[in-house]
């Protein structure tokens, strides 16, 4: 089990970043919450298509689960092809968000939670909140 978490930097104590395509860092943990891998987001500075590229990256890394704040429509379209489970609504640190996942406090999603280009504006103006249907 490989869980990808969107963060501001490396380590379990780093704050999470609620953007998917343009978060600076990804921390990958196992089902015990131990770090198995860390990586800077290669698409953080992409002029366009950051969500698509980030989805490609996360899937290429072999992640089974993604914990994020929000996910846009193009990223979701790309992520959906792989069967990765996506949960939104993380907050606090990387370790906090793993606990939120374990305690089933996050929202599993099948629909995008923000419009495209959301991450480029540095937040604000999105729909937010997720539209969970459960059933994963």
């Amino acid at each position, binding site marked *: 089990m490989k869980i990808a978490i969107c963060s501001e930097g490396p380590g379990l104590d780093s704050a999470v970043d609620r953007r998917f395509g343009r978060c600076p860092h990804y921390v990958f943990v196992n089902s015990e919450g131990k770090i198995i891998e860390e990586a800077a987001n290669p698409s953080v500075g992409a002029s366009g298509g950051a969500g*698509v590229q980030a989805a*490609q990256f996360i899937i290429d890394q072999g992640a089974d689960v993604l914990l994020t704040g929000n996910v846009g429509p193009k990223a979701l379209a790309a992520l959906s092809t792989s069967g990765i489970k996506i949960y939104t609504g993380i907050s606090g640190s990387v370790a906090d968000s793993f606990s939120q996942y374990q305690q089933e406090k996050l929202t599993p999603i099948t629909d995008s939670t923000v419009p495209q280009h959301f991450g480029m504006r540095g937040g604000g103006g999105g729909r937010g909140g997720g539209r969970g249907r459960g059933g994963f």
Partner: protein
Amino acid sequence: MILAIASGKGGTGKTTVAVNLALALEENEEVQYIDCDVEEPNAHIFLKPDFGSTEMASIPNPEVDENKCTYCGKCKEVCSFNAIAVFKDNILVFSELCHGCGSCAYFCPEKAITEVPRDIGIVEKGVAHGIDFIHGLLNPGEAMSPPLIDAVKGEMDSQKVIIIDAPPGTSCPVVTSVKGADFCLLVTEPTPFGLNDLSLAVQMLRKLDIPAGVLINRADIGDKRVEDFCRREGVPVLMHIPFDEELAKLYAKGEPVVLHSSIWRDRFRGLWTKITAASDAAAGKETERKEVDAG
């Protein structure tokens, strides 16, 4: 002669100047008006052309034959715009990110990608007051304006005096519009905002190696810093247009001033004389520079 009329800042009077210049020249020259502001074209409001033809403009987008695709990922690697995602048994194309460069089809080892046109807007051609008029209309929500601008510019007739009305700013659509021009007239206003964006536009034109001159609109308001900037940077100021109630009233009615005033027609003809002189001087310097470089 290809003259581009541009500005860093929006709303400085590019179209007003371009339209009046075109009309002032039309009596003695064959003039072509190319409105490259495809996101919000508005020169037709002044010139009221009769449009004779409309053509669709498109960009090529990849279409993948999944029977041939082996999901090797080469197309994704060569795409600079993240328009393709490839997974172990799946491939996705994001058309709205595609710039139509054709690299994916070119590099696909299986020849699984063909390029199919995607409409991005239309090109309309017509005649107004004896001027050959061409503009483009980008589909709302479409991000890829440069290919449409190229399609509009594809209608240029080098036998004529070509006036290109560029969009504001200094990014891709503006670069696409002014590229290939012999001279660029930058329309600005004497305000801190006009100055800031003028200096960006001057830097852009230096990178493109296009000689520039400046027209200061609403010249009797604001401050002298635009003049100081032009002197310091060696960019000639070719015309001043005052902040004038009559001009504003005509503008408000969508009327070009040269159709109502022979004084203004002569002033715009005077501007053209200065533009051609400045363009010739710049071309002369360029030849000199090349001769020096050649030893």
